[in-house]
């Protein structure tokens, strides 16, 4: 037979894994091809030397860290460490999140205290008398008409007459978001309460209902019909209650 044995059969022969007819075929072939036979013998010899030199020897010093039990214990420890690390990370994240949220609240409050302009307007007109009202109502309904001329669909002016307060004047103010208006009410004792309306902002958000005291004044604010409103009064019981009732009516 002339066809050379397959590579597989040659290697299997070298490695002593070939039996029976295939083995005889390889032997017959090698008998006729001395060069190939010499190579195969050399390969067998190399394999024997390799086995003799390497196989079955244990020259390496014992390494305790490699034993399965030790590896297992280390994995367990690492898992626990990782778990506690993860728990710590979650905790940090949580604390950071809560803290951050509170910081955000504090910052935005500090940056844009709601209705600070309403209180500034009140001080300017009602306390300092530094600015005069633009309009002084001659008849009932004048203030509402004036307001409607500047603000479409704004809330109705509150009626504070039951508490002795009457509208005495109105004034426009400029804000970054457009005109704002203040209507000032006074009672016989000269106490002032203001109704303030402005476009929402800055950053264009409407206000939740709330109140804020600052420097002896109280602003009670809310939103509706696309505007922000505030009733500003002195921060004492009676006037603030009147303002609160007015807000109640308007909401």
């Amino acid at each position, binding site marked *: 037979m002339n066809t050379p044995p397959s590579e*597989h059969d040659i290697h299997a022969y070298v490695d002593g894994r070939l039996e029976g007819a295939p083995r005889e075929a390889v032997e017959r072939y090698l008998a006729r091809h001395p060069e190939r036979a010499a190579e195969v013998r050399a390969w067998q010899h190399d394999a024997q030397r390799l086995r003799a030199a390497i196989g079955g020897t244990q*020259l390496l010093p014992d390494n305790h860290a490699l034993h399965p039990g030790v590896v297992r214990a280390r994995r367990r420890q690492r898992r626990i460490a990782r778990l506690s690390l993860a728990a710590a990370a979650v905790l940090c994240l949580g604390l950071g999140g809560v803290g951050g949220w509170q910081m955000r609240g504090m910052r935005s409050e500090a940056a844009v205290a709601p209705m600070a302009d309403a209180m500034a307007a009140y001080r300017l007109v009602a306390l300092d008398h530094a600015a005069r009202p633009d309009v002084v109502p001659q008849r009932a309904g004048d203030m509402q008409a004036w307001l409607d001329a500047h603000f479409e669909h704004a809330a109705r002016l509150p009626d504070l007459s039951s508490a002795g307060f009457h509208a005495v004047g109105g004034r426009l103010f400029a804000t970054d978001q457009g005109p704002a208006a203040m209507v000032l009410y006074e009672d016989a004792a000269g106490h002032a309460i203001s109704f303030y309306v402005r476009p929402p902002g800055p950053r264009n958000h409407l206000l939740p209902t709330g109140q804020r005291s600052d420097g002896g004044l109280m602003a009670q604010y809310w939103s509706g019909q696309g505007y922000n409103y505030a009733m500003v009064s002195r921060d004492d019981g009676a006037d603030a209650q009147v303002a609160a009732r007015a807000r109640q009516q308007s909401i």
Partner: protein
Amino acid sequence: MSIHAFDDQLSELLPRLRRFALWLTRDLSSADDLVQSTMERALSTRAAKRDDGDLRAWLFRILYRQFLDARRRSQRYAWLLGRLREDDEPQWPSAERELLAQSALAAFEHLTPEQRSLLLWVTVEGLSYQEVADILEVPIGTVMSRLSRARQAMRRHGDGEQPTPSLRLLK
């Protein structure tokens, strides 16, 4: 298989794994690192993957894969540093070096890691060609031609029967 039985089998194979890793990396501490990560991998994937087949071939496969990964990483790292450690002198443990010198197996050292692995698996460990093909993830025919090349390289580098001068020993 109980955990204990499995651990016992692993312990039994540990010397072979270390030997293989040593011939692969030519450095004892890298070899033991490799064996350690192989053990960890084996212990963590046992339940999911292993129930049949030869445990030894499976471990060799893990170890060899980890070796390839590590080498790829270190080559990337070396490239980043602008140097390749190809021609660094291998750090053989002295006992192994002696062994090499004595047995005139210097040729073995000149083979590529893959060729060394191949010859170890086939001649020393006696893995089947199919198991080797599975480890290398190549067809069995490819294993055969690579085996031919490895054996030829062994011949080419080796000076046959004459023992190599033991200069290497004194270095």
